[in-house]
């Protein structure tokens, strides 16, 4: 007997699916500022060219980039309680996503900072700007502008990665999908629908980032 697809049974759950999308976006949008914050902080510290901190940040970046996200999130969620730190699944997910994204964001932002010519910074010094001002207006902002496309695709990747947080029962779309699957037994249709929703969200985010980019970096360069 040929298999009958039954998407109606899944689409009947549309309020839950929509809610799942909201949860995924919420999780990702909370993790993104952590990612960006850590990246900017680390790039600031790297600027000082101090030996120990450079090695520590380098070690963090390599450790995160060369191990799977699944193992990282398990380490945080199942491992840390043995040290007495018990995290809520959502907190663990946001933390893991933020830290994971940061390792990539540091590399991206550093690339942008390295492209800024020395003369710009010297001009800032000559104008009497304080070092924080130089870092903020002469280093970070133009660097962010230069790496904006790479940074935003990293953020979209972060949103897609958040699906893995379902494995520690964090509330997000894939987890909602697993619940619908348990009620309908329509595994294929459920996950197909959810994949389509992720596709829509990643297109939506990329549009949104394009608009935000145009609004934030619309000043002329020369």
């Amino acid at each position: 007997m040929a298999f009958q697809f039954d998407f109606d049974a899944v689409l009947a759950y549309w309020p839950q699916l929509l809610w799942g999308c909201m949860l995924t976006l919420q999780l990702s949008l909370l993790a993104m500022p952590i990612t960006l914050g850590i990246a900017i902080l680390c790039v600031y510290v790297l600027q000082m060219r101090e030996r120990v901190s450079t090695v520590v940040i380098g070690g963090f970046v390599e450790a995160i980039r060369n191990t799977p996200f699944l193992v990282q999130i398990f380490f945080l969620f199942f491992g840390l309680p043995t040290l007495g730190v018990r995290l809520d699944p959502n907190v663990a997910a946001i933390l893991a996503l933020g830290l994971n994204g940061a390792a990539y964001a540091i590399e991206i932002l550093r690339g942008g900072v390295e492209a800024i010519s020395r003369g710009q910074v010297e001009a800032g010094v000559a104008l009497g700007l304080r070092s924080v001002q130089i870092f903020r207006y002469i280093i970070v902002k133009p660097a962010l502008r230069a790496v904006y496309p790479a940074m935003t695709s990293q953020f979209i990747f972060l949103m897609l990665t958040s699906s893995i947080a379902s494995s520690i029962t964090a509330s997000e779309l894939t987890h909602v999908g697993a619940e619908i699957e348990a009620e309908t037994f329509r595994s294929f249709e459920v996950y197909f629908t959810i994949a389509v929703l992720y596709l829509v969200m990643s297109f939506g985010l990329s549009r949104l980032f394009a608009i935000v980019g145009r609004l934030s970096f619309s000043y002329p360069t020369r």
Partner: protein
Amino acid sequence: MITSLGPVQYLLLLQGLLWTLALSSVGFLCGGIGGFGIALARSSGLRWLESLASAFIEVFRGTPLLLQLFIVYYGVGLLNIDMSPWLAVAVALMLHASAFLGEIWRGSIQSVPLGQTEAATALGLHYADRMRYVVLPQAVKVSIPATIGFLVQLVKGTSLAAIVNFTELSRTGTLLSNLTYRPLMIYAIVGAIYFVVCWPLSWFGRAMERRFTPADRT
């Protein structure tokens, strides 16, 4: 009963690592073949073929690998063919790798100046010869760093097979952590094993990138 962490447990982890490496190799090799086709289609100059290839790439880049795994895994079940979970996971990784490698290699092919293709055409070379002797040798050099970068992503990506209960390295870690009640230790070891596999690759990729970058980037 609580098991302690002894030689047997380490051997189990090594066995898990073998499955991880097997999945990565199959995914990379088969994905490489698929990716090559996608890259050629994407830079073929035929409108319909290019949009088809680019739709394939967009779908796989715009959805999580985990969902791709689920869809193939449950989709295979619907087809009434007896397929082992390991094959379903391998097929999903292969499709995923085809899309990403296809996009990387399309970029490399298009980075070869158009004048090269034009000169080859003027010399009377056909498509196959043009690709084989003129475009691809130059494109391969450009593509190496990004290709290795993706290989690292793929090795890490195989960990998601654990979620569909395929016993590779990560799931071996989960099973052992349930037996030993030492999740912190186990996941640290599992992470370290992935690191030992991935870090040399990352390092090599970066070395290649430095080598092929023009010296004018001071």
